[in-house]
């Protein structure tokens, strides 16, 4: 009982709280200064959807439409034609980044691994039309990397 009164009079519980905050005062920061320092992304990070080509440079995508059916909001639209070698190739491949929630169902549904998530997460644009990404901007190379940056 005495200990309780002693604690109550000399505000021990309040001082204990102060000591905790003082401890963290000296323990140093945990935050990352965003534009200069950046966090390391895990390999499975789901960034922007990108279209990939095989070694010879033609599309991996065989325009089967699995991804269109898998997507909850069907944000991908493909117009395809039979190429000279009778195989279906996509002519236009538009992706509506506007309503994409990065759920990854399309990547999982694609039989030929043609679409995968890149590690880009700075996807802000000034005008909405840029969010409807067309085939030429879907590949991951130097000019598309600037696609989101230069605005």
């Amino acid at each position: 009982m005495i200990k309780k009164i002693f604690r109550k009079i000399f505000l021990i519980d309040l001082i204990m709280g102060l000591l905790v905050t003082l401890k963290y005062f000296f323990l140093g920061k945990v935050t990352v200064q965003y534009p200069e320092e950046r966090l390391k992304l895990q390999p499975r990070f789901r960034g922007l959807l990108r279209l990939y080509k095989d070694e010879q440079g033609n599309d991996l995508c065989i325009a089967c439409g699995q991804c269109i059916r898998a997507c909850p909001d069907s944000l991908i639209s493909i117009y395809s034609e039979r190429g000279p070698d009778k195989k279906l190739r996509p002519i236009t491949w538009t992706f509506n980044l506007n309503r994409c929630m990065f759920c990854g169902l399309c990547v999982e549904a694609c039989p030929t691994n043609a679409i995968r998530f890149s590690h880009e997460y700075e996807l802000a644009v000034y005008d909405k039309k840029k969010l409807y990404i067309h085939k030429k901007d879907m590949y991951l190379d130097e000019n598309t990397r600037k696609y989101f940056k230069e605005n």
Partner: protein
Amino acid sequence: MNIFVDYILIPIIKILFIITFVFVAVLILIWLERRFQGFIQSRLGPNRVGPQGILQSIADALKLLTKEDVVPHQVDKFIFNLSPIIVFVTALVVFAFIPFGTDLTLFGKKISLYLADLNVGLLFIIGFNSIGVFGIILGGWAAKSKYPLLGSLRSASQMISYEVALIMSLVSVLFFTRSLSLVEIVKAQQEMKVWFAFIQPVALFIFFVAGVAESNRLPFDLPEAESELVGGFHTEYSGMKFAFYFVAEFAHILFFSALVTILFFGGWLRPFPNVSWLSFLDYIPPVFWFLGKLAFFVFLFMWMRATWPRYRYDQLEMISWKWLIPLALANIFITGFIVILVK
């Protein structure tokens, strides 16, 4: 000595000095609080504007200056504009009587480091301080919307109850000084060779708690409790008027830390004034002692803000009426009794 120099030039310089001191101190205080709280929360405070973010509060001030001064239509114009001024002026005026240090001899002229030495200094300060409450009450009321109304009502009752506790704790200190002027109080501590804090620990505790409540700082910051009343009494203010309130709040902190150092920790006296072998401490000019102690108490204000939760409105009143005031009264009787015994 001609009148001009003594009664006009030097006071003006002192006034300018005090105003710049208060403004610069407040700006640094704002920046320091955000940095300090940041480090406690294991993050960096503002560090973008200027080296280590020092110019951050200047940037804030400029932003507030250029921000559009919104005056909601249903507001009572005159009082709405008047109340920030009241708060700001009272917060500034009280600094006139704070003695920063002993007299300074510059170009052969003895200059006292305080603007005026009223023999009723302390009474004047406390009186002026309670006028500041009007600013908050009128400000909240004039805004004519529900949240500021609640905020201002809360601040009214909080101020009154803690004003009583404040003054009573001072009374027990004044037994030993026999004069209300702050300079005399420090001199009294010098003669008695001991700080009042060691004689009157209870009064110190009450005074400090009441000081925190007066300046609306965290354990008692009901009137502008963000999480409950959105913005408390200054919800409707924006731009320069809001800056007045903000500066006034920090000026209050500065003022109460100064008062605590003067009344309880010997304004500009070096620690343990009577201990002879500590005399090498005399080389440090008295002003630094005063500012050092001031900084410690300001640090304490910020530390409390970062750590403790907030009291509820009625608990706040209960503490003052049921705990602080009876304690202060008992303290007065005991000290009075002891003083008579000693005489």
